[in-house]
């Protein structure tokens, strides 16, 4: 069977629906609506038209020769999801789910956000479709991503800082689920990554699969070959699964997911779920989880809010265990260095999340030859990260991290 055909509720032993009974009817309704929509030509045409005339798809490929020269091995090609409207890949999933929510008659969108990119994308879709939008964001993240909070508010969304637990993405998901349990009649929970209960992992993947579909055809068209390897950053794993999916059955294409290693995977401060976690249940799915001996979730750490998550999508857990994809850690320092490097060699400022994939790509490029090509998912732009970057590099007078 084709690896691309796996469509839940389980990916190997991972996935499922570990949620309160109160949510099951909503998940059943969503699954039925999604199954109907994905073969409905009207739905697909409407989404494709939105992507053409609103998102700005297809996103282009950009070769990055001066950046690749830093490694001195393989060529590096960037899939420019940073050029999408709202500045990241997140819009792909958001428009798909918002269209579905409208079909279901829901008038209120609930979202969680880490870096704020998914919250901004959801607030954007809510504005476009005239829906109410409430975004849960860990209090820690509202502070380190203040600009995105302002963007969401400007777009008309209500941003709720979450003060429970570690006050980051995982707690924002808990709070979003609590909201959804109470408001499921009128609300759709627009989950922003490939985690959570079925059908979210497969549905979110399918909405992001456009990235890999375009990229594979563009590689063949513009470079006359498939890439040697595909690289992406992995928090929950949505941009990675989006670019991986179309390549899953191309056995010669290596797939690399780069997790946030924070201070290093051998320190307590990282978010390297697949490298340092073990199977468990979190946020509705069986998957790898950073947890203590008792199964209490451990707080993750990363300079990148979008990768600061102690779980990972169940399909990644499955690809990890089967060996189809390789997951490696990239430290805060490596990522920030790659962020500056790409900015200075190519004039492209990537998001800190994306910079993990770029650092990882440089690492694997060194052992490759100039005939090899690494396709990197440039999942988001770095405007939102200027404050963090300025502090990190001491770019603002008198301030240095």
């Amino acid at each position, binding site marked *: 069977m084709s690896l691309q055909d796996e469509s839940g509720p389980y990916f190997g032993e991972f996935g*499922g*629906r*570990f*949620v*309160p*009974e*109160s949510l*099951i*009817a*909503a998940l*059943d309704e969503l699954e039925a609506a999604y199954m109907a929509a994905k073969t409905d030509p009207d739905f697909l045409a409407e989404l494709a038209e939105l992507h053409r005339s609103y998102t700005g798809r297809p996103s282009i490929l950009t070769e990055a020769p001066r950046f690749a020269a830093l490694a001195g091995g393989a060529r590096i090609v960037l899939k420019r999801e940073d050029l999408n409207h709202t500045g990241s890949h997140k819009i792909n999933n958001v428009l798909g789910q918002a269209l579905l929510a409208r079909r279901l008659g829901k008038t209120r969108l609930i979202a969680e956000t880490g870096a704020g990119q998914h919250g901004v994308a959801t607030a954007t879709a809510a504005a476009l479709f005239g829906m109410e939008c409430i975004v849960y964001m860990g209090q820690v993240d509202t502070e380190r991503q203040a600009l995105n909070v302002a963007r969401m508010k400007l777009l008309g969304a209500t941003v709720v800082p979450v003060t*429970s*637990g570690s006050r980051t993405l*995982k*707690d924002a998901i*808990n709070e979003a*689920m*609590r909201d959804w*349990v*109470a*408001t*499921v*009649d009128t609300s759709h929970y627009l989950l922003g990554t490939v985690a959570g209960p079925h059908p979210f992992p497969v549905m979110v993947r399918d909405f992001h699969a456009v990235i890999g579909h375009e990229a594979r055809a563009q590689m063949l068209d513009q470079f006359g070959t498939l890439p040697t390897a595909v690289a992406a950053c992995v928090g929950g794993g949505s941009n990675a699964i989006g670019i991986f999916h179309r390549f899953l059955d191309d056995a010669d294409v290596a797939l690399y997911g780069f997790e946030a290693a924070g201070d290093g995977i051998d320190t307590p401060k990282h978010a390297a779920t697949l490298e340092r976690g073990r199977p*468990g*249940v*979190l*946020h*509705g799915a069986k998957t790898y*989880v950073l*947890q203590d*001996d*008792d*199964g*209490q*979730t451990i707080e993750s750490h990363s300079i990148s809010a979008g990768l600061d998550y102690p779980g990972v999508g169940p399909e990644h857990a499955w690809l990890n265990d089967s060996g189809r994809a390789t997951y490696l850690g990239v430290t805060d320092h490596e990522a920030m260095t790659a962020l500056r490097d790409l900015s200075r060699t190519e004039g492209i400022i990537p998001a800190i999340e994306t910079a993990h994939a770029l650092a990882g790509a440089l690492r694997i490029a060194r052992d490759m030859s100039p005939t090899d090509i690494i396709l990197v998912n440039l999942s988001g732009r770095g405007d939102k990260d200027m404050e963090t970057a300025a502090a990190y590099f001491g770019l603002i007078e008198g301030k240095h991290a």
Partner: protein
Amino acid sequence: MSSRVEAALDRARAEGRGALVAYLPAGYPTVDASIEAVKAVIANGADVIELGIPYSDPVMDGPVIQRATVTALENGFRVAQVFDIVRAVSQGTDVPILVMTYWNPVVQYGIDRFAADFAAAGGAGLITPDLIPDEASEWIRAADAHDLDRIFLAAPSSSPERMKQAVDSSRGFVYAVSTMGITGQRGDVDAAARSVVASLRTAGAEHVCVGIGISTPDQVTDVVSYAEGAIVGSHLVAAVESGGAHAVGQATALLVRGLGRA
């Protein structure tokens, strides 16, 4: 193979009243203090105890229980201590002790090993808020092997088929979720509660307890007019928070007055 929880509910019914199922978090604020709190609740007339295992990501719980959970974990609570608590509070009483737990701590302990150790400590069964029967085959096998109750939830949004599945999969009682929401006090227990219980009866349920949002003797009176028991959590946890074992004992005594016992 018999359910001590069903026996406790039947005993209350034979006395012409409903049953009070009292929730308290294990290890809150400390292991010893939680033992004292549970003993006070038993001494003041609770029929069934529901001991919650503190968990880092309690998606069904509102602020009161979340706060207690955080405190218990900060005070060093370990999952295996729940067995010590069960052992301590079940001595000298026939009030059955259920444990309410999110699923990951059980998965990490080992499902069968958890069931074995829990049964050996004198526990009666598990309430599993984020484990639906569809995902529970391993737990159901372990519960049967160790003669434990397995209590699944039914919600206002559950289809007739899922109501039937909850009834068929549960032993002890079916937990009827009174309202679409999380734990915490509410002014009104949703009219939906009555309808959930009616659907569960249609599906063949003999024992149903209603939980979520119940905090006053009047609400308890109302609920036990159509269900075997009323489950009270946040209200009792708030009593522990404000005044420890003494306060939660008093709060229990007030709720028991709502059960219809003379």
